[in-house]
């Protein structure tokens, strides 16, 4: 008996050695939360029509993981030297993104026309503050459409404002032309602007639009040292008309709520066959039970 008892003790000891401590995971959590948190704020700039859209993304780096911070207040300001003008506040969403949109006319600019934008997170009890800046000069891209010799021509004109507030051309830059698709932008060409800030592109014919053939066409100057990101867009019905497939009702594809008929029939035949045999076996058992009342035991 002593040997058996000793064997049990040995078994319990071995298993308890293998068993991790009850608070193993909570300790791990505590260690990760003990690491100092670092706030990171990134700002994206886009000048579209007469507006500027500032997008600030706030994230918290804690240990090796980076998490978006939701419901944080981000302040947007514009400044020139010592002067500073408050543009507005926005709260971050689930992805830590806060967006601020405003017209760029009347904003304080430097002598070269550059405007300095700042996004600021003032911080909280748990997380330190963070700041991000971007400098750019407002610009504008206009799109116009014409048909010349049965060719579809897209004309793009890019302008900026001079010291007097007059619109002047942006010469020599490259403008990228896109058409938005379901997941991303489809690039259809590039236009090099001439001295008048204008350029043309023969518009392709085989791009699918909506059911009316409408297409949104976008012209962009990207990652420019002076203008940053500038966007102009317009709509034209030069697309191929989209045709929707009208399925028969009720549809029986794999992805519809109703399964294909052949599948239902096959399943029913198989299940009926199998369960009929089961029922027969159970019936035989019932009959064996009924027959027992007449008979005597085996031994």
């Amino acid at each position, binding site marked *: 008996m002593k040997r058996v008892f000793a064997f049990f003790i040995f*078994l319990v000891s071995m298993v308890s050695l293998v068993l991790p401590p009850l608070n193993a995971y909570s300790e791990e959590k505590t260690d990760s939360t003990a690491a100092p948190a670092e706030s990171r704020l990134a700002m994206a700039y886009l000048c579209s029509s007469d507006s500027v859209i500032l997008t600030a993304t706030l994230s918290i780096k804690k240990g090796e993981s980076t998490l978006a911070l939701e419901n944080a207040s981000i302040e947007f300001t514009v400044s020139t030297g010592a002067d500073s003008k408050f543009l507005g506040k926005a709260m971050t969403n689930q992805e830590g993104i806060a967006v601020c949109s405003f017209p760029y006319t009347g904003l304080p600019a430097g002598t070269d026309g550059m405007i300095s934008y700042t996004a600021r997170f003032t911080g909280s009890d748990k997380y330190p503050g963070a700041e991000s800046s971007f400098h750019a000069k407002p610009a504008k891209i206009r799109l116009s459409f014409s048909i010349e010799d049965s060719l579809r021509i897209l004309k793009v004109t890019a302008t900026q404002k001079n010291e007097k507030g007059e619109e002047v051309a942006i010469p020599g830059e490259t403008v990228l032309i896109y058409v938005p698709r379901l997941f991303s932008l489809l690039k259809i060409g590039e236009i090099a602007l001439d001295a008048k800030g204008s350029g043309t592109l023969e518009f392709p014919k085989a791009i699918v639009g909506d059911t009316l053939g409408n297409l949104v066409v976008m012209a962009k100057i990207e990652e420019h040292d002076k203008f940053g990101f500038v966007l102009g867009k317009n709509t034209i019905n030069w697309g191929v008309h989209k045709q929707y497939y009208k399925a028969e009702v009720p549809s029986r594809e794999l*992805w519809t709520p109703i399964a294909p008929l052949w599948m239902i029939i096959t399943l029913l035949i198989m299940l009926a066959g199998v369960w009929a045999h089961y029922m027969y076996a159970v019936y035989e058992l019932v009959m064996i039970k009924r027959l027992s009342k007449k008979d005597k035991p085996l031994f």
Partner: protein
Amino acid sequence: MELQQKNPLKEFAPQLERTSIQGYAWILFLLMVIGVGVYAFLQQVIHGHEVTGMRDNVVWGVYIVNFIFFMGVSYAGALISGTLHLFKTAWRKPIIRMAEFITIIALLIGPCFILLCIGRLDKLHYLVIFGRIQSPITWDVIAISTDIFGCFIFLYLSLLRDLATLRDYELLQLPNWRKKIYKALALGYTGTPEQQERLNRATDIMAAMVIAIAIIVYSVLAWIFSVTLQPGWHSTIFGPYFVIAAVYSGSAVLILCMWVFRKVYHLEEYITKKHFVSVGVIMLVLAAFFGYFTFSDYLTKWYGSEKNDELLIQLLFKKFYWPFIISNYVGVLLPLLVVGIAKFRTITNITLTSIVVVIALWLNRYIIVVPTLESPYLPIQDSRPEWLNYSATWVEWSLTATGVAVFCLLFTLASKFINIVPVTGLQKEEKKEDILV
């Protein structure tokens, strides 16, 4: 009366009446392993699946491997017991009940691993409420539940004669509640010609049914993989390949069970070398088929040179080199050598080979599931390296060990409830020469 009037249970009564100290120690050990598993399960419930190695890319891991493995073992038990019964194989009697128990016990454990893999068990009933017939998951739910009913009926029909024997054997020293259970379950069977005729008919029909269902159900499990366009899974031979692999692994598990019960219950007179060699030959044939299917599957993938198949094969020969070699080379060649060459054909060698086959077939399922998920067609946005490289955690290993422990425990308890060797029509194995032995 079909049963012999002398007490056929005399030799098996001690197994049912008493449990030795070693037996209690064994059960306690199994319960301790299960206890660790319960603790691991609680960790998973409290902390979620982050305590496992599964992440956004590799969403299936050891749990699914165990599910496939246990279901395979179960279907193998059904196929082997059903086939032996239908063909009235002369040597089947001492081992057929083990095969039947393997079927039921593995069938109860396998689906539990699916439940461990599902994140939101509170929404499990949605499978019934919102299940779509087009979904392979729904096919699997229907197939497994149908299979469980069929296997239970088949097992019950097979047990009926022995339940009647246990009911009527007065010298058996058992508590009254157990005798009452035997009486209730025996359904008043006394072995009259009409009862025998009905029982034989029902058993024959169910034997044929469990074979058919096992093939269909395991094919359905294979189709869950093969209907998807994943590299390594999208294969037309996956259905038969899975069935062969299942029966192969099940035959190895059956040999292990035979060896264990032969030793523990001293069944040397009933389970002889002939039985080991006979099941070993089944294992040999299945090893050859398994090797053929494996080679055929990988050859066509390799020769096709499709980009993602090539990447997968590279992964198998680099990161998963040893699992690949053990499962597809050692696991195939060893039974061919050990059972195929008469000199090596001993009980110990066949049993050791079975252990290797069980490990090899488990690894086979692992290299089917994990490497494919580690080489996805579409990269996930913001994916991290640790999401692409699966490594099972102690929680998964504990629950795997628990699955094995529950299998052993249920087998032990089942052998305590009813004799592991059917006594009806049983004859001791005579020592005679056989071409294979």
